């Protein structure tokens, strides 16, 4: 009897403790504190990426007292982590409150002590494998790697990774980021490696580096960061980027030039990004409010509008919260069924291989 009471007491104590960890601040408290802080500093959120433009506008409309200070939209994941490090002592507007980085960058940022824990109200609906148990980082959305092709300048649209090596694509293929800092570019290398048959992880990372070395030696690789603008201007007619970015670019260009979004036949890689709050955030409560907004139905649908699959996609679809027209506009589900979701260890090993080996193996700089 005593043991059972003791156990029961301990259990309820543990439950209430974890409840306080999860819900130490109610949403109303966070809102008040955030409004008192008056500003949120974000970094690396291009407005065309996953519909962030709409998401930020939605946040501003909901909380007009909070100014959103957007830093360097072109920053890669590594740059975001560096920005936190560089501003440890700085509480000014150059220090980011929140970061949105590739899956491999979440645990490494936590290990360096750059993140603080927060579990959003809808925490339970985020799948387990892609969130940190303590709440330091949590998945926000995912997509698959694809090619964006400028049909005006490319006669024969490539369908697979092997096609890109053909001589007809001389000086046309580019990555959408710096492969030493941008998660998008690092995972593009992984996908290329996987298409050659290598096992995901370090092996595919190294194989991907060899692939890009071959691409560069053949003269097909353009060492310029590819975006919608450079695609249309002709500098980078083929860009390897996430399908959601490719679809958003297609919308922006509105047919001038006409583009095609191609998910390659082999080496279909799904990439997950994670959110985190900086441990040195000058406005921590605004950061928490931002997270609550992102993981609310409104925020998740905002990302869906940008062609991304938000973290709560499965739960929301099951609950019927997603409008049919948004579902229809998404890339076909078949591509996602064939897609491979790399584990945390695999993206970690790949990141180490690519960032460390790019300069030595490929060494493609603008000459």
């Amino acid at each position, binding site marked *: 009897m005593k043991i059972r009471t003791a156990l029961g007491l301990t259990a309820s104590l543990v439950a209430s403790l974890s409840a306080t960890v999860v819900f130490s601040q109610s949403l109303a408290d966070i809102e008040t504190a955030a409004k008192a802080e008056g500003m949120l500093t974000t970094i690396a959120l291009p407005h065309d990426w996953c519909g962030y433009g709409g998401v930020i506008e939605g946040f501003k409309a909901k909380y007009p007292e909070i100014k959103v200070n957007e830093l360097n939209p072109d920053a890669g994941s590594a*740059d975001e982590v*560096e920005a936190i490090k560089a501003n440890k002592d700085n509480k000014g507007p150059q220090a980011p409150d929140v970061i949105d980085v590739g899956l491999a960058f979440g645990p490494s940022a936590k290990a360096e002590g750059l993140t603080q824990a927060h579990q959003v109200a809808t925490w339970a609906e985020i799948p387990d494998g892609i969130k940190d148990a303590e709440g330091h980082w949590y998945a926000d959305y995912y997509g698959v790697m694809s090619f964006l092709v400028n049909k005006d*300048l490319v006669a024969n649209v490539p369908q697979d990774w092997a096609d890109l090596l053909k001589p007809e694509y*001389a000086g046309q293929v580019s990555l959408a980021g710096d492969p030493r800092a941008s998660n998008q570019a690092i995972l593009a290398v992984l996908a290329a490696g996987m298409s050659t048959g290598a096992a995901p992880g370090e092996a595919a990372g190294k194989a991907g580096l060899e692939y890009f070395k071959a691409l560069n030696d053949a003269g097909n690789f353009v060492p*310029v960061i590819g975006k919608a603008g450079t695609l249309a*201007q002709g500098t980078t007619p083929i860009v390897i980027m996430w399908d959601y970015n490719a679809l958003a670019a297609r919308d922006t260009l509105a047919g001038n030039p006409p583009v095609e979004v191609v998910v390659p036949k082999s080496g279909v890689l799904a990439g997950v990004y994670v959110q985190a709050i900086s441990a040195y955030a000058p406005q921590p409560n605004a950061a928490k409010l931002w997270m609550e907004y992102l993981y609310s139905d409104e925020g998740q649908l905002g990302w869906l509008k940008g062609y991304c699959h938000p973290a709560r996609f499965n739960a929301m679809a099951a609950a019927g919260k997603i409008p049919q027209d948004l579902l229809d506009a998404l890339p076909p589900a078949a591509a996602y069924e064939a897609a491979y979701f790399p584990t945390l260890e695999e993206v970690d090993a790949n990141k180490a291989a690519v960032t460390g080996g790019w300069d030595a193996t490929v060494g493609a700089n603008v000459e």
Partner: protein
Amino acid sequence: MTDIPPRHRPKLRLPIAWLGILPFALFALLFLILPTMKIVVGAFQSPAGGFTLQNLIDLNTDSIRSAYWTSIKLSLITALLGCAVGFAMAAAVVFGGLPKRIRGPLLTFSGVASNFAGVPLAFAFIATLGPAGLVTLWLKTEFGINLRAMGFNLLSFWGLVVTYLFFQIPLMILIIIPALDGLKREWREAAAVLGATGAQYWRMVALPILFPSLLGTFALLFANSFGAVATAFALTGPQLNIVPIKLFAQIRGDVLGNPNLGYALAFGMIVITGLANVTYIVLRTRSERWLK
């Protein structure tokens, strides 16, 4: 009040007079001298805070060495070409027997073009000589000339050279035209009287007189090109390996893995541009002797 000549009361007047430039001194100190000193001192500091030459030694890695070499190459070539073409155009206007009305518009345009560096210049050249640019496509459709097949790529070292010349040549024109004006007609006539041909006049009279100006302007163009970052950044992005872009990336995020190395990088830039500018000033003072 009869005014007493200052030299009878130097001790009283001097401090007050110097007070007048105190605001300027304060501004220069806070926003010019101290930041530069911070960089220079930082280049010789180790993370622990003591004096060290290690940062400068660390500059001797492959990628940094090649960045400096590419920057120097780029600056030398754009300065040389800028001088040559600028001189040709300036000489054409001053001595070529062209209508006098061309001079004014050329000078005004040079003023505009020398300030049109940076992001918009990159856009202009991409729209003209880029892979889908006006001239590129025109050459392809009208003459079947494929610039890329001929080896020209705007997003390369030589593409950057072509772009940089847009503000280097006008700078040369602006500076050399007053120097060319200083070449008195009497000297030409005197040389002709003594039997010199045009070429001999240029070789033995005009160019030696102009030489300090030319060399000095060359140094100025060199420094101008070495420090430029906006145009290159907008044209090729952060993957061009020149020193300003490397420094830009280092400031934004510690890509080199060593904050003090950034100081050393900047210090190297100051030394190089400083030397070039000192050369320019020294040579300008020498040339002014002749051209008064």
